C-alpha cells in the first residue's frame, strides 16, 4: 500500500485514531469486495468514505459492525486489537451504524425497532416498555423526527423509516458512528437536521464515518476523506487539501466527461402517450409522451413514486384512472403479459427479486418471456433456446463461463445484462430501465450506457429511471422530475443543470428552503 496511516496522522497532529483498520480483505464467491484496505477514524472528526457503486464501502461497514468477518486484517480500538463476532459485540464496543438498507421490522413498533437487542431492562431483567417508549421519543425528538414511538413501523413511509434507522444507531452509547448514505431518502429539511446532528455528534467527540455519493454534502460536513476503488483504498487525506474534480478522478480512475457516450438523437414519431394516469395512493396526474429513438429520463428522490408509475405501465399494479396509447391506439394493460404483448418491457430496479431468477441458468432466464417463439406447441426446443440466448448475450457482450451457468453466479453488471437480454429478445417497442446501473461496477456501467445509446439509435424508445444526476444528465434527451407521486417538471436536456434537478426534486423552490 502506498498510503500509510501514520503519515496522515502526522499531518493531522496529535490525536490518535479511535478506530483503525489495517490490511482488511474480504471476498465473496467470485468477487473480491475488499483487498488490503486501511481506514482510521478520529474523535470529533467526520471521515467521508467515497467510492463508486460496488467499491466495497458497505462491505467495510458490515465488517466494522460485526456482520461480516474479514478474511484478513485487523481492527484496532484505542490501539488494542478487537474482534466483532456479532452485531452485538460491535455495539457493546461502542460502534454503531446506520446501514444503507433499512434493516428494520415492519411488524414491530417504532420504539422497539430502535431498541431491539438493547432494550432498557427493569426488574428481573425484564424489558421496561414505558422507559423504552420514553427514551425512543427522546431520541426521535433529538433528530427532529415527528414520529410516535408506538406506531407500527409498517405504517411509516420510507423517509420516516430512515429516521427510525438513524434513531436506532443513536440509541446505542457509541464512540464511533457509521452512516452509510443516510441522506439518500430524506427530504431537504430532514437533511438539514441530519447535518446539525452530525455537528452535534462531532462536538461530543464521536468519530464519524460518513458514506455518500453527494459531493456537496461531503464538502459541507467532512474533515477527512478515504477513497475506495474496486475494493482497494486508493487515497486518504484531509478535505481541505482536495477539490471535487480531484476526488472524482481518484474515485473513478479517469476523467469524468468521457463516461457517457456521445449521441446524436433525432427522435421520431410519438410511440407512447400517457395521460391522466393516477393511482389512489401512489401517484396522480401523470402525463407524458415518448418518441421513437428517444431516451426519456425520470429523476426524483428515492420514494418519489417513479418505479410505481413504471410498474403500472408494465401492468404490475393497476392504476385507477388514465389512458395509455401505443402508436396512437388505446392500450389496455392489466398484466405484465399484456404489456409484453403490446411491446412494453421493464427492467426492474430490484434485480435480485424482480429481474433475474438467480438459481436458473442464463439461457432459461433470457428465453423466459420468449418461450412461445422457441417452442413448438408448448414443447420446449432446447436448441432454439440456446440459439436465442446466444444471439442476445453475444450482442450485450455478456461475460460468463457458459450459457447454463446460474445467473446468481454472475457479477451485478452481468446479471443486469442478462435481464436486458431477456427483454431485447422479445423485440419490444418501449424499454423501461429502472435504475439500470444501480450497484453495477464502473466497466459494466459504461457498457450499459453505450448499449442504451445503441438501442435508441436503432429506434427503440427508452425510459430511464435514475437517481444519479450524472447519468440523467449524460443520457437523457428529455427529463421528467417527479416529487411525491406527481410530475414536478419536465426539462429539455439543453436547459438542464444539476442544481435545477436537485431543487425541483426536493421541492426547494416551492417551500423556499433555498440551499
Amino acid at each position: 500500500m502506498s498510503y500509510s496511516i501514520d503519515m496522515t496522522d502526522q499531518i493531522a497532529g496529535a490525536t490518535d485514531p479511535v478506530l483503525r483498520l489495517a490490511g482488511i480483505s474480504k471476498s465473496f464467491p467470485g468477487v473480491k469486495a475488499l483487498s488490503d484496505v486501511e481506514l482510521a477514524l478520529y474523535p470529533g472528526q467526520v471521515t467521508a468514505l467515497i467510492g463508486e457503486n460496488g467499491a466495497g464501502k458497505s462491505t467495510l461497514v458490515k465488517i466494522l459492525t460485526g456482520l461480516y468477518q474479514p478474511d484478513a486484517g485487523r481492527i484496532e480500538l484505542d490501539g488494542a486489537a478487537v474482534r466483532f463476532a456479532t452485531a452485538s459485540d460491535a455495539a457493546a464496543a461502542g460502534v454503531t451504524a446506520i446501514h444503507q438498507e433499512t434493516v428494520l421490522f415492519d411488524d414491530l413498533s417504532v420504539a422497539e425497532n430502535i431498541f431491539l437487542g438493547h432494550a432498557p431492562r427493569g426488574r428481573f431483567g425484564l424489558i421496561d416498555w414505558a422507559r423504552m417508549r420514553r427514551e425512543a421519543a427522546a431520541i426521535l425528538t433529538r433528530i427532529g423526527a415527528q414520529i410516535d414511538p408506538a406506531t407500527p413501523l409498517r405504517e411509516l413511509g420510507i423517509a420516516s423509516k430512515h429516521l427510525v434507522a438513524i434513531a436506532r444507531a443513536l440509541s446505542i452509547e457509541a464512540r464511533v458512528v457509521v452512516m452509510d448514505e443516510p441522506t439518500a431518502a430524506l427530504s431537504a429539511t430532514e437533511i438539514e437536521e441530519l447535518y446539525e446532528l452530525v455537528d452535534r455528534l462531532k462536538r461530543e467527540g464521536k468519530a464519524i464515518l460518513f458514506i455518500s455519493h453527494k459531493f456537496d454534502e461531503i464538502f459541507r460536513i467532512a474533515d477527512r476523506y478515504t477513497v475506495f476503488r474496486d475494493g482497494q483504498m486508493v487515497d486518504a487525506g484531509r478535505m481541505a487539501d482536495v477539490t471535487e474534480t480531484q476526488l472524482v478522478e481518484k474515485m473513478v480512475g479517469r476523467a469524468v466527461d468521457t463516461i457517457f457516450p456521445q449521441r446524436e438523437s433525432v427522435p421520431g414519431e410519438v410511440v407512447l402517450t400517457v395521460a391522466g394516469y393516477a393511482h389512489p395512493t401512489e401517484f396522480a396526474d401523470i402525463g407524458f409522451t415518448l418518441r421513437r429513438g428517444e431516451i426519456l429520463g425520470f429523476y426524483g428522490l428515492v420514494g418519489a413514486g417513479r418505479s410505481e408509475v413504471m410498474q403500472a405501465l408494465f401492468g404490475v399494479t393497476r392504476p385507477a384512472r388514465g389512458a395509455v396509447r401505443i402508436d396512437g391506439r388505446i392500450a389496455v394493460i392489466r398484466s405484465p403479459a399484456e404489456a409484453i404483448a403490446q411491446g412494453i418491457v421493464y427492467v426492474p430496479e430490484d434485480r435480485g427479486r424482480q429481474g433475474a431468477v438467480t438459481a436458473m441458468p442464463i439461457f432459461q432466464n433470457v428465453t423466459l418471456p420468449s418461450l412461445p417463439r422457441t417452442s413448438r406447441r408448448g414443447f420446449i426446443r432446447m436448441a432454439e433456446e440456446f440459439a436465442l440466448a446466444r444471439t442476445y448475450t453475444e450482442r450485450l457482450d455478456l461475460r460468463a463461463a457458459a450459457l447454463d451457468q446460474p445467473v446468481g453466479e454472475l457479477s451485478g453488471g452481468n446479471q443486469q445484462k442478462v435481464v436486458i437480454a431477456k427483454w431485447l429478445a422479445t423485440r419490444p417497442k418501449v424499454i423501461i430501465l429502472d435504475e439500470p446501473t444501480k450497484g453495477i461496477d464502473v466497466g459494466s456501467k459504461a457498457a450499459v450506457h453505450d448499449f442504451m445509446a445503441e438501442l435508441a439509435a436503432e429506434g427503440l424508445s427508452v425510459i430511464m429511471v435514475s437517481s444519479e444526476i450524472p447519468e440523467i444528465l449524460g443520457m437523457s434527451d428529455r427529463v421528467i422530475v417527479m416529487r411525491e407521486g406527481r410530475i414536478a417538471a419536465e426539462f429539455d436536456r439543453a436547459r438542464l443543470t444539476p442544481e435545477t434537478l436537485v431543487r425541483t426534486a426536493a421541492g426547494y423552490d416551492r417551500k423556499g428552503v433555498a440551499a
Partner: protein
Amino acid sequence: MIRSFVRSREAILLGALIALVLLVESRFSGFASPGNLAAVFNDTAILIMLALGQMLVILTRCIDLSLASNLALTGMVTAMLNAAVPGLPVVALIALAVTLGVVMGMVNGLLVWKLDIPPIVVTLGTLTIYRGLIFLISDGAWVNSHEMSAAYKALPRAELIGLPVLSWIALAVIAGFAVLVNRSALGRAFLAVGGNPHAAVYTGIDVGRTRFAAFAIAGGLAGLCGYLWVSRYAVAYVDVAGGFELDVVAACVIGGISIAGGLGTVGGAVLGALFLGTIKNALPVAGISPFWQLAISGAAIIIAVAFNARSSAKAGRLILRPESTA
C-alpha cells in the same frame, strides 16, 4: 389503548368465542356456567400449551409437526418408568418428561440450525421417528390405569382452589409465555427472526440459535404435556395424540399467528386453542352429531385464516401527498 384492543384480532376472536359459548348456552343451558367453562378450559389445557409452543416455532418462520409424537413418546416413557419403578417421585418423572421433550426439540432445532434443512422436512421425519420409537420401547403394549401409581395419576386432577392442577399448570405456562414473549429479549428475538431474518442479524440476533431455542422450548412443553396427557387419561399407547399436531397448528392459525412468521400473540394462540376446544366440547353437548365436528373445525380454520389475511392485508405505501398539503 382500549380502542386498539377492540380493533385487534384478539378482541374479535374473543367476541367469536363468547358468541359461540352463548350460542351453545341458548341450546343447552348450563354450558356457560362457571363450572362447565372451567371444565372446558381444563380440557383444552394441553392444546393451549402445545399451541403456545408451536407459536414460538411459527413466529420464527418454522413449523414443528413432531410435537404430538414428542408428547406421546415422553408420555409413554414416564408411564413405563412409573409402572416399572412405582416409587419414583412424580416430580422426577415430570423433570424427565420435560428434559426428554427438550432433547427431542433440540434434535429438530439442530437439524434446522446446523444443517439448514427446511423445518417441515425435519419434523415430518421426526414425526414418524419419534412415534415409531414408542412402538419400539413399548413393543406396542399399553400401559393401563391400574399399572400406574396413584400419585402418578393424581397430580393433574388434584384440585387447588376450585381448579384442577392441570388448569393451573396451563395458566402458569400462559403467564410464563406472556412474560417471555412480551418482556424478555429472547421473546422479542423470536418475533424479530420471523419478521425479518435478514434484519435480525443486524441487531445482533443469531437467527439459527433463536430458532433452535424455539424448537427446544416447544419440545419441552410437549414433554410436559406428555406426562399430563398420559396421567390425565390414565393410559399410554402408541397412538396417543395421533394427528394432534394438526390441531395444534390449526389453533395457532385460528389465533392469528401468521404462518409466514413474525406476527402473533400469546393471547391469540390461547384464544385460538380455546375456540377449537370449545367447538369440540360444545358439539356433543349441543346435540350436534359428532360427524359434523371435523367439517366444522375445517370451516373454522378457513374462515379464520381468510379473516386474518383480510385484516392484515398490506395497505399500499403512501407516496402521494394530497394536493392541498403539498
